[in-house]
């Protein structure tokens, strides 16, 4: 927002917008290895869709980028600046950069004791020093833009699942993120509510927001991706533009996965 903007996301180094090198992550004191030296780069023009089997490490990858996890090894740079790194056992996170990344989760994470307006203004007002009136104006503007302005005084429990996820996206947008992470944000929704959330993400994409999206919705993936990466066994097994990826995946695992998903989607439940 206006008050705190020390870090400049330069256009000149667009090719190095996000660069992940040798990322390793394990749980249970290193017993469960989840990411095994994962490499990935993304430009500021990219909308990266991450697909892959359950347990393949997709959520973990996004959580690492958001700075929610300690990493065992590797580094994440943004615009050529070190953002996250492993320092013998400790994880260094540049909070300045972290503040400009937004994330929306699969489970509903609106704070139930606050109404929609307060959910939106909490972080700007309490954490970033934005005056309340300025934050509330911005909240109204964002909610209007996404057709949610009737819900400003509603509590989360009074919203449908689709509305909850849209408000969660709006809450992240309040902080003017330069990169958005979406982790299966429609997976918990009833089928008829999925499209309103997808429409909102597509609108953001059309506005030029760089994003990384984990989804099992192949229609959505095709529609929004500039690149599709296949994440399995804690590494990126395949990385291609969507047309190429879906037409002729090179790895056997990706081929099997796509066949299974398309097959499952075609079957009536």
């Amino acid at each position: 927002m206006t008050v705190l903007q020390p870090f400049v996301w330069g256009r000149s180094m667009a090719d190095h917008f996000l660069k992940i090198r040798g990322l390793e992550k394990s749980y249970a004191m290193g017993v469960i290895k989840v990411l095994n030296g994962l490499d990935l780069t993304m430009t500021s023009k990219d909308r990266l869709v991450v697909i892959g089997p359950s347990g393949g490490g997709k959520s973990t990858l996004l959580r690492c980028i958001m700075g929610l996890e300690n990493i065992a090894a590797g580094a994440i740079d943004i615009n050529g600046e070190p953002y996250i790194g492993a320092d013998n056992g400790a994880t260094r996170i540049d909070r300045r950069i972290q503040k400009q990344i937004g994330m929306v989760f699969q489970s509903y994470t609106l704070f139930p004791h606050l109404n929609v307006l307060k959910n939106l203004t909490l972080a700007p007002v309490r954490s970033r020093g934005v005056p309340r009136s300025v934050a509330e104006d911005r909240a109204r503007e964002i909610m209007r833009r996404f057709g949610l302005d009737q819900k400003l005084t509603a509590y989360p429990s009074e919203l449908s699942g689709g509305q909850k996820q849209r408000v969660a996206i709006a809450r992240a947008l309040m902080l003017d993120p330069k990169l958005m992470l979406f982790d299966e944000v429609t997976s918990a929704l009833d089928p008829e509510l999925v499209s309103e959330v997808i429409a909102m993400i597509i609108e953001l994409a059309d506005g030029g927001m760089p994003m990384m999206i984990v989804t099992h919705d192949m229609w959505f993936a095709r529609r929004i991706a500039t690149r599709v990466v296949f994440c399995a066994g804690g590494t990126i097994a395949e990385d291609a533009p969507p047309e190429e990826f879906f037409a002729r995946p090179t790895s056997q695992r990706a081929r099997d996965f796509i066949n299974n998903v398309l097959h499952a989607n075609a079957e009536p439940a």
Partner: protein
Amino acid sequence: MQNLDYFFIIQAWPLFLKGLWVTLYLTFWANVAGLIGGALLALCTTGPYRLLSAPAKLYIEFFRCTPALVQIVWFFFCVPILFDVFWSPIFMGVVILGMNLSAFNAEAFRAAIQTIPRAHVDAAVALGLTPFERTAYVIMPQALRYAIPVLITNGIGLFQQTSLVALVGVDELMYNGRLISTSTYRPIETYTFLVLFYLAVSIPIGRLAAFIEARSDRALKA
């Protein structure tokens, strides 16, 4: 069986009221101390710092696993000697009752904190909230609402426990009741009246508590 005579109660009325005042005073301030102490202890036990969580857990165990009466007697007799402090009996009463209540309230807060989904904390981190901001604006407001029923039960329980400090000379309701009973030689009437008196105060407090609980319930669901 002697004749029962409740008439003398009228004469003893001021002493009863004085006792009631002290009882309510103890209840109120011990609850204030217990809410603050309980919240702080719960934050210590659920936090990441072992240096804080280990002593906090020990404190909670100690106060939950020893009889309140023993704690009170120990506190009144040993603390002035050990630490060379001389506080008024009422203040001592507030401190020890508050310390006891803190341990029980800490458990209520801890259970409430642990029902808050992990994802809420992740979302708060993703929004850039610092650990303090997460605690103050996301975790504790929710935990307080979840914990209210138990906090109220503990608070009413404390109203009854204040009678224990009569034994160490705090002139609250029970103490004055005993005074009246021995000076009038009418223990049956006095203690019967005393029970009714506690009941007459407890029931409205309980009703008020139920009302607050229902309201906060709605606030969380709404």
